[in-house]
C-alpha cells in the first residue's frame, strides 16, 4: 500500500509543484492556508487536473500526463474527507452511508457492510437523522463512515478538524487516529496545525507557495526543518538572519549575538531556536539580557528578552514555577549550540 505523487499545475498566483511519496503510513502536508495543500488533494482525487506529472496509488496509475492516463474520480477509489464533511443534506445518515456502499453490486453484501460500519462507528442511534440535526463531531464520524464503506485505497483528509470548536478537536483527533490505525493503508492529511500534524502523522511534507520545501520523518523535520518557512510552520518562533563568522560561528543580526553552532554553518542564511529550548543559565552562547515583556499563558510564561545593541527581542517559554522563582534577579540567557537550527533563506 503506497502513494506517490509528482505533479505540476499552474495556479495563476504561483505554480503547484508537489512531489512526495509514502508507504503504509500517514503523511501530512503542512502549510499555511492558500499554499496549495487542498489543491494537491483535489488533484489526487481527480477533481482537478494537473498540467503535468504522475500519481500512483497502490501500484495503480491514477494520472500520468505522458501516457495520457487520467482516471475519473469514481475510478480512483480515493476517500476524500472535506473540511465541511460534504454530507448530502437531503439524505439521512443511513442513506448517506448507503450511498457510499453503492460500488458493491451485490445487494445483500451492500446491506451487511453498511450495517457493519454503522455499528463500528456507533451511529446506530443516529441513522434516521439528517445532517443538519447532527453535531460537528457526529457529522465527521458519518462522513468518515461513508468514505470507509466505499473501500478507498487511500484516505485524503482535508483539514479534518478546522470546522470544529477547539474543545471538541482533541477528542475527535483521538477518534480519527483510531480510524487511521484501523485503515492500514496510506493516509494523506492536510493541515496548518503543527501539533495536530505531529500527533497524527509519521511523515511530514512542508509546503510553501505550491512547492514542497522539505519532506521526511516527522521528528527529523521538526529537528531540522531546513528552511525558514518550514521552521516557522513547525512552530519555531525565534528566527534571525546571520553573518557567518567561522565554520561553526555566526553573528545573529536581529539579536546581536555571536553564537557557536553544533553543526557546520555551510550556506545557511538564518538561525532559529525554539522558545522552550532557551536556558536561564551561564555557559556556552550565554548573554546578559533584559526583560522587554512578559506574557502569561494558561500554563506557562513567554518572556521576551532583549540583549544590548539588538534590534529584535527573542522569546523564551518557561513553566510558571521557574519564572516565579527567577523573576527580578534574572539577567542571563543561554542558547545551547545543539538547540540552534541552521536554516536556508
Amino acid at each position, binding site marked *: 500500500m503506497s502513494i506517490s505523487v509528482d505533479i505540476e499545475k499552474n495556479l495563476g498566483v504561483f505554480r503547484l509543484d508537489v512531489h512526495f511519496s509514502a508507504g503504509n503510513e500517514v503523511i501530512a502536508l503542512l502549510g499555511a492556508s492558500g499554499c496549495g495543500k487542498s489543491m494537491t488533494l483535489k488533484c489526487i*482525487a481527480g*477533481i482537478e487536473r494537473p498540467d503535468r506529472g504522475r500519481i500512483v496509488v497502490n501500484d495503480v496509475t491514477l494520472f500520468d500526463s505522458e501516457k495520457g492516463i487520467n482516471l475519473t474520480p469514481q475510478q480512483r477509489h480515493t476517500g476524500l474527507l*472535506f473540511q*465541511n464533511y460534504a454530507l448530502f443534506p437531503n439524505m439521512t445518515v443511513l442513506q448517506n452511508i448507503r450511498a*457510499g456502499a*453503492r460500488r458493491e453490486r451485490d445487494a445483500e453484501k451492500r446491506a451487511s457492510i453498511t450495517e457493519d460500519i454503522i455499528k463500528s462507528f456507533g451511529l446506530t442511534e443516529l441513522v434516521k437523522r439528517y445532517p443538519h440535526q447532527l453535531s460537528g463531531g457526529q457529522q465527521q464520524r458519518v462522513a468518515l463512515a461513508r468514505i470507509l464503506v466505499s473501500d478507498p485505497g487511500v484516505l485524503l483528509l482535508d483539514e479534518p478538524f478546522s470546522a470544529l470548536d477547539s474543545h471538541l478537536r482533541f477528542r475527535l483527533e483521538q477518534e480519527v487516529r483510531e480510524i487511521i490505525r484501523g485503515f492500514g493503508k496510506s493516509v494523506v492529511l492536510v493541515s496548518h496545525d503543527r501539533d495536530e500534524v505531529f500527533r497524527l502523522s509519521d511523515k511530514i511534507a512542508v509546503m510553501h507557495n505550491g512547492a514542497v520545501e522539505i519532506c521526511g520523518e516527522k521528528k527529523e523535520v521538526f529537528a531540522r526543518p531546513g528552511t525558514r518557512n518550514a521552521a516557522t510552520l513547525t512552530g519555531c518562533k525565534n528566527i534571525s538572519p546571520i553573518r557567518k563568522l567561522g565554520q561553526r560561528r555566526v553573528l545573529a543580526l536581529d539579536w546581536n549575538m555571536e553564537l557557536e553552532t553544533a553543526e557546520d554553518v555551510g550556506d545557511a542564511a538564518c538561525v532559529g531556536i525554539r522558545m522552550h529550548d532557551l536556558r536561564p543559565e551561564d555557559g556556552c552562547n550565554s548573554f546578559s539580557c533584559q526583560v522587554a515583556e512578559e506574557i502569561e499563558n494558561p500554563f506557562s510564561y513567554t518572556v521576551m528578552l532583549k540583549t544590548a545593541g539588538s534590534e529584535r527581542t527573542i522569546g523564551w517559554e518557561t513553566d510558571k514555577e521557574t519564572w516565579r522563582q527567577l523573576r527580578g534577579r534574572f539577567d542571563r540567557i543561554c542558547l545551547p549550540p545543539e538547540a540552534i537550527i541552521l536554516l536556508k533563506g
Partner: protein
Amino acid sequence: MDLFPLWNSLRIAGISTVIIFFVGIFAAYYIAKAPRAVKGVLDVILTLPLVLPPTVVGYLLLRVLGPKRPIGAWFLSVFDVKLTMTWWSAIFATVIVIFPLMYRTARGAFESFDETLAYSGKSIGLSNTYIFWRIRLPYCRQGILAGTVLAFARALGEYGATSMIAGYTPGRTATISTTVYQLWRTNDDNLAFRWVMVNMAISFVVLLAVNMLEKKARRTGKEKGGGRDVDFG
C-alpha cells in the same frame, strides 16, 4: 359561461411548463458550467424573450412556422399538418416566452449548489447521473419549484404571441387572455369581468405558492450551509 378558455389555457400552460421544466434545467446546468464568455453570450440570447414584446416573439414565430415559411411549409407538405392557428400552436409561443423564467431561476439555484457535495459523491464512486438526480436536483429543489410555478403563471397569462400564432377561435383556440380581449372588444363587459376575476384568482394563488417556496428555500439553504467557511487553500 363556456369554460373552454379556462381548460385550454390550463392545458397550454401545463404542457409548456413540463417541456420547459426539462429544457430549462438542462440549459441551466450546462450553461452554469460553461466558460465565462460562452455563458455571457448564451445568457443574453436565452434571456431575450423576457424583455422582447410578445408581439415580436409572435412575429418571429410566424416567420418560421407560418404555412409559407420554411419549417411550416415542410410540415405542411410532409405531414399535412399546419403549425399555426391550432390550440397547440400557442405552446410554441408560451414555451419561448416562459423559458427565461425557468432558465434563470434554475441557474441561480445551481450556482448556489455546494460543489464539494458532487466531488465527495464522485470520490465514493457515485455516477454523475446519480449525483445529478439524487443530490444536485434535490439540493436545488425549492429554487427549481419556484421557477416552475412562476413559468406556469406566466404561461397562463400569455397573450401577444399566442394571439398571433393561434388566433382566437371560440371553442378551439380561445384562451382566458384572448377571450377577455375579445369580450371587451364586443362590449360584453359582464362576461369579460368574470374572466378577469378567474385570471386574477389563479395568478394570486400561484404567486402565493412562489413566495412560500422561496421562503422555504432560504430557510433550508441556511441549514445546508451550516454557516461554515470552506478554505480551498
